[in-house]
């Protein structure tokens, strides 16, 4: 709430007080424009300087270097490195767009991209729906609500890599799921060794990890919808579905839009679940773009830095395109974001 009230007041805060601080007649006199801009904004610029510096040095520079590496043939053998006191000079060469041509004309990239899209859509939509459903359940006077709430957000509090190992314990060949299955007379399944089951397993685990965030976010949004609206609708004879459709949905739209965007980006980039649960296997069937890029540079031998960088740049382009499109579609619907 305070955020919204703070916003309109901002121009006054940035320009006004300085002028006042300079003495009584400051806003009557008109200093030269450039000087005025500098004197108004220098402290704002001073305040953002450290972050701009950090962004430039450890994100901007590596980013440019990554783009450059994607245009070379850098691999394990020809990059520069320091081993003890010896420094090896890099010997890789500029090869232009060769890497991009190679990646974009092969099947691997498109196959991984297709699965990444399926994975992202499945995870985000199911996570959101489950989270919203649970939030709706929790947003009522229900006995033991606090306990339910604590239990339901537990998965969020555990580091993802620990959760993944917990699930591996359940999915393992002689783990709990198979023990239950064989106990029921059904043959056990090689959960993480069969392409389809492995895909289902990684999606399940990711949903399990992601639901608490959705739950808490949508619960907060649901609670911020004024209760009077429901009362008024009920007086006018609206049924539960109509109330949900016409009051709840518009009321939680802006929060939903944000969490879906965040969740999509996180899921698209979700490294630990796949890397630690299946390692991308079996036979790369559960490999998404980021794990493939990682494997290219750090797992497979010989390490292929240039191709990995190429994948990285392509992934970034995809994400930026997605964010821009998403923002535009929100604007069309009249969202302020």
């Amino acid at each position, binding site marked *: 709430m305070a955020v919204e009230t703070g916003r309109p007041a901002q121009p006054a805060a940035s320009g006004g007080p300085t002028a006042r601080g300079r003495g009584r007649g400051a806003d009557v006199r008109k200093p030269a424009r450039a000087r005025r801009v500098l004197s108004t904004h220098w402290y704002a610029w001073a305040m953002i300087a450290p972050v701009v510096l950090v962004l430039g040095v450890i994100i901007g520079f590596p980013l440019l270097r990554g783009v450059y590496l994607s245009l070379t043939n850098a691999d394990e053998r020809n990059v520069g490195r320091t081993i003890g006191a010896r420094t090896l000079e890099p010997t890789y060469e500029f090869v232009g767009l060769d890497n991009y041509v190679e990646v974009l004309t092969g099947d691997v990239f498109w196959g991984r991209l297709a699965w990444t899209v399926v994975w992202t859509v499945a995870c985000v939509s199911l996570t959101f729906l489950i989270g919203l459903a649970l939030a709706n359940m929790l947003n009522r006077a229900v006995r033991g609500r606090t306990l339910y709430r604590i*239990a339901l957000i537990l*998965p969020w509090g555990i580091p993802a890599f620990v959760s993944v190992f917990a699930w591996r314990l359940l999915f393992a060949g002689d783990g709990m799921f198979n023990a239950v299955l064989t106990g029921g007379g059904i043959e056990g399944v090689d959960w993480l060794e069969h392409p389809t089951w492995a895909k289902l397993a990684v999606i399940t685990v990711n949903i399990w990890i992601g639901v608490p965030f959705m739950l808490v976010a949508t619960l907060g949004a649901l609670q911020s919808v004024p209760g009077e609206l429901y009362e008024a609708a009920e007086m006018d004879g609206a049924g539960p579905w109509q109330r949900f459709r016409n009051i709840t949905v518009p009321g939680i739209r802006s929060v939903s839009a944000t969490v879906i965007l965040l969740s999509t980006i996180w899921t698209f980039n979700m490294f630990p679940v796949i890397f630690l649960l299946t390692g991308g296997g079996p036979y790369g069937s559960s490999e998404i773009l980021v794990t493939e890029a990682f494997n290219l540079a750090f797992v497979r031998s010989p390490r292929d830095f240039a191709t990995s960088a190429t994948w990285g740049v392509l992934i970034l382009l995809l994400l930026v395109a997605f964010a821009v499109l998403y923002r535009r579609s929100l604007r069309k619907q009249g969202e302020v974001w």
Partner: protein
Amino acid sequence: MTKMPDHAVQQPSTRTRDEALEKVPATPARAVPVTPPARPGRRVRRRGERAPLASVGLHLGLALATAVAVLPPLWLLVTSFKPKHEAFTLDPVKDFTLDNYTHVLGATEFVTWFGNSVFVVVLTVVLGVFISSTTGYALSRFRFPGMRPLLWTLLVTQMFPMAVLIVPLYNLMARMGLLNQPVGLVITYLTIAVPFCAWMMKGFFDTIPISIDESGRVDGLTPFGTFWRLIMPLAKPGLAVTGFYSFVTAWAEVAYASAFMTGEDKLTLARGLQTFVNQYTQDWGSMTAAAVLIAVPAALVFGFAQRYLISGMTAGAVKS
């Protein structure tokens, strides 16, 4: 969260409505539109009341979800107390033992990894929050040329996949001899922490009324003075939460830690846990004990900070 209105709070107003309908002899004009829903023989439920069947369904649904949410960590905990050879039995703990814990703490490098993780994460969080807070303040309070591009940069860098930075950072670290050094990992994690912290701090500063700044300025404080003496003390909860959130994020980072750290004594927890169960060894007992020891502090930190997390994140993100 608990203060938010729910249906229980709203009942008084509806009760007066119901009572008005029951007791006060209503004029025919008012009674006509209300009578159809109240069929004879069926008690009219008040607003917020449920049919018993709906209550059962609600509790069943929530109980099922709770079971799913709790099962994996619970099973991890249970397994950690079993002897190694019983790790995969279905029974709850039959022969309770702490062997796994003593083994992990005594015979492996776990304690070193724990120290490495704490070192890396604390340094990351302190540096990240310290660098970011002034930027968050400037973005929240001032309109200046370059503000929108900066906001966009912060947002875009937050969604940077590690895949785009990991190779160049790896090469840079290799050139500077920082591979396999916790300090290198700190620098790497700052690429995650700084955009994130700046963004979240902006959200927190947005919630502090701007009139406080104005009164400080009227009384003659410089912009920096206002920030440091008035706003920072008020933003302490925000600083803490931003810090805790980056702590939890960095505590669980896998990709950079797996790629950059190789020496047995240099690993962080995220990398170290992988050494128990991989293609060469299958030490599930030690893995579960180590996992519990890693998860407990993280869960405690999370439990402390969680109620503020979501408001900060969505406030910052929505109101940009």
